[in-house]
């Protein structure tokens, strides 16, 4: 399996093939429903969001709390399609990669092509396995959302499958 180093770039994305199994290395953000809504509402109101999305990859997850001495708890992907209505706007603001599970809407498929982005799936329901691929985790925004806060995760050989290009 090919190692892909984050942050993603359009040049890296050009080398990806649909259905290719890869290992992600580097760091990405986490965000799910509540964070997507807040990011979108903020952008729409013309205000600044607390993170830059330029060249970023978002992993759709809401981890379980980390046990003492552990980096993170169980952290598998959540269903990506719930983020569909928010995704085109985030792509417009520079988001380039997404990791989750399941199919995406037609609009998201088109937006991914338009912006030269990439959507990966990873293994749903394998949160314990995936937690071992996470080397650091830090809440960087929306702490009040608890498990739905935005984290920055550093990962090593995080398995993913290229799903939409």
């Amino acid at each position: 399996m090919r190692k892909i180093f984050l942050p993603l770039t359009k040049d890296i994305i050009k080398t990806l093939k649909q259905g290719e199994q890869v290992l992600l290395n580097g760091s990405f953000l986490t965000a799910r429903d509540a964070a997507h809504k807040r990011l979108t509402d903020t952008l729409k109101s013309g205000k600044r969001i607390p993170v830059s999305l330029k060249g970023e990859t978002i992993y759709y997850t809401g981890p379980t709390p980390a046990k003492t001495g552990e980096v993170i708890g169980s952290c598998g992907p959540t269903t990506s399609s719930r983020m569909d209505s928010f995704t085109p706007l985030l792509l417009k603001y520079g988001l380039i990669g997404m990791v989750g599970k399941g199919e995406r809407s037609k609009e998201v498929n088109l937006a991914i092509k338009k912006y030269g982005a990439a959507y990966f799936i990873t293994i749903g329901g394998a949160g314990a396995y995936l937690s071992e691929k996470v080397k650091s985790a830090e809440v960087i925004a929306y702490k009040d959302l608890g498990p739905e806060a935005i984290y920055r995760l550093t990962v090593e050989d995080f398995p993913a499958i290229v799903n939409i290009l």
Partner: protein
Amino acid sequence: MTRILDSKLIQDEVKDLFIKVNTCLRPDILSGLKLARKKETSEKAKYCLDVIIKNASIAKKKMLAICQDTGMAVVYLRVGQSLVVKGDLKKSVAKGVALAYKKGYFRSSVVNDPLIRKNTNTNLPPIIYTDIVPGNKINIKVVAKGFGCENVSKIRMFKPTDSVSNIEEFIVDTVKEAGSRPCPPIYIGIGIGGTLDKAVSLSKEAIFRPLGKSSKYKHIAQLEKSVLKKVNSLKIGPVGVRGNTTALGVSVSTYPTHIAGLPVAVNISCHATRTAEATI
């Protein structure tokens, strides 16, 4: 004979059951996954199942949640009519849930109000169903079901004159539409009969049945077999990467119904189907 039971014992049992379901995959489900692994021919599907099987062993060894979506706690209580519970039964159940989610480092996934949506940070309240049965014991069944699969579950009110093949088509279409969202390979619980709510309830409890065990009714066992075959011919496969196993099993529960109706509920459960029960 009347028996007195301290509600603290119920609290402890609820706590233990939720810690167990969230960290130790049901042995029948694990066996089903291993069998599915043998049946796969594509390397990608084999890889996905290997990861899922490895996930179960990591979770068990580290006492870590199998899946980060540790669910909204659903508890079924069947209370013997000759049992006297000392203390507050429902409060004890809720306390057991709260303790399990805290001690197990499970995710608090419950919001206080469906529209205001503020996390309660305790995974409370649970959903509790109670029933009164003969005897002086209490049977406790728990489910921790993630919402990836809950969100794609469905109910349809058929006409009494609709055919079994109409029902099969509805179930297969539900699975097809769900695609890879509910974390296949799935376990499908079906409830047929009763009322709107009864059918859903039947479909929820159907997934308690051990995988591979058929209905005791011949015509229902036949339906289960037929649906499983059709669902697997969709080839959605593990994680949705295409493959031979989209569902590990189908469990149908039935109940008498009204002359004017034929409710059918489809409860899709992910490969991390988390149920357990105990009797005190």
